[in-house]
């Protein structure tokens, strides 16, 4: 049941070197640099997004994910979800408006997988980049690199994904669109959606707390994914795997790494989910095919290389 959590809003990613990170997120992925703050953080967005930013980069001595935020329909939703999260036993912290530039108050909470999430209801809306909202053109000129359309989702690794899954389904109103189950019925992967997308956030079981697998950006077509692969070779970027297709969500994908070792995905296509759809199940013995539909073998790097 939907509970007023609308969509992924932003991720804050730690990087080892800001200028190197910008050659990745801005010049290669094609995000637009929107702002910087006095902490040295850089704010970026993909061109089709209405809100001012969706990716915040912070220089640190350890790469990974600081937090992943979801935008809610209104402040009342944020406050009621906040009460339920406290009742459930999450550690909840209120972050005042303006801590992230031009973003309203955020409610931060933790999950059993060791990740920090946020809910918020307001952020400055600068509109689609380079597009007039009246009689809009199809796309803006002047985009760089892969010309990412939007920040789409993130995949996170940690222990007790059932606990994190329960918070997202029962408190935040997400649907479990897809899962991977072992032969004895233990869930080892959860793909969760608060929209009609195949996933807005996903979890895979691993013993280490709070690990970041990837942030994913939407491209329009398979040809765009191939051209992204061309750019990865042309610029000698660290490749992970692809272009290929996932079994889970059936998206067409390529994975590569930012200069600090955080994984990035660009993808196109894939399945959709409505609230009346039953959860799709992949069996663990088909995990290789579930992750990479063409290779159909377990890929150790996909399962173990994390920040």
């Amino acid at each position, binding site marked *: 049941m939907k509970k007023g959590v609308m969509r992924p809003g932003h991720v804050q990613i730690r990087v*080892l*070197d800001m200028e190197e990170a910008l050659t990745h997120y801005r010049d290669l992925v094609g995000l637009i640099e929107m702002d910087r703050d006095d902490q040295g953080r850089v704010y970026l967005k993909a061109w089709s997004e209405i809100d001012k930013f969706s990716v915040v980069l912070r220089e640190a*001595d*350890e*790469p*990974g994910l600081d937090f992943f935020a979801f935008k809610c329909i209104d402040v009342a939703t944020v406050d009621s979800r906040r009460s339920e999260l406290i009742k459930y036993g999450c550690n909840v912290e209120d972050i005042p408006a303006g801590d992230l530039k031009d973003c309203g108050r955020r409610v931060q909470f933790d999950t059993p997988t060791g990740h920090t999430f946020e809910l918020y209801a307001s952020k400055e809306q600068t509109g689609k980049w380079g597009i007039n909202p009246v009689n809009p053109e199809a796309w803006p000129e002047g985009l760089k690199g892969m010309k990412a359309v939007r920040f789409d989702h993130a995949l996170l*690794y940690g222990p007790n994904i059932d606990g994190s899954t329960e918070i997202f389904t029962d408190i935040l109103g997400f649907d479990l669109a897809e899962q991977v189950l*072992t032969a004895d019925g*233990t869930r*080892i992967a959860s793909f969760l959606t608060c929209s009609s997308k195949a996933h807005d956030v996903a979890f*895979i*079981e*691993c*013993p*280490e707390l709070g690990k970041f697998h990837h942030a994913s950006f939407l491209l329009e077509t398979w040809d765009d994914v191939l051209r992204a692969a061309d750019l990865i070779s042309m610029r000698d970027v*660290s490749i*992970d795997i692809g272009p290929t297709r996932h079994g889970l969500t059936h998206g067409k994908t390529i994975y590569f*790494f*930012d*200069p*600090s*070792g*955080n*994984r990035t995905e660009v993808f196109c296509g894939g399945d959709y989910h409505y609230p009346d759809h039953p959860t799709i199940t992949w069996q*663990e013995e088909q995990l290789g095919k579930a992750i990479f539909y063409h290779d159909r073998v*377990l890929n*150790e*790097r996909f*399962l*173990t*290389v*994390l*920040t």
Partner: protein
Amino acid sequence: MSQIITKHKIQVLNQEQEFLCPSGITLLVGMETINSHCIDVGCRGGGCGVCKIKVINGSFLSKRMSKAHITDEDLQKGVVLACRIFPTSDLKIEVLHSPTSKQVIV
């Protein structure tokens, strides 16, 4: 105008292998270039910790590595990530695959 590329000999003591690493590229990419697999390859960006090695002997330049995997104490012992060091002499190294690099999710 031709550019002279120096190649440094990398001896991997606990794998009984050696390879030549051209100057200006990281030890890990040098290893990948000759299709050797003696060091596990992860993110190639100093983030995941998979390619941890110990430099026993020799000199190198290095870029920033994740503190989650390489502490200041590690650095003093020559424990580094192969994806972040640029050999400036012949090197003798040992591969230190971290236990977490071999974890499977279930």
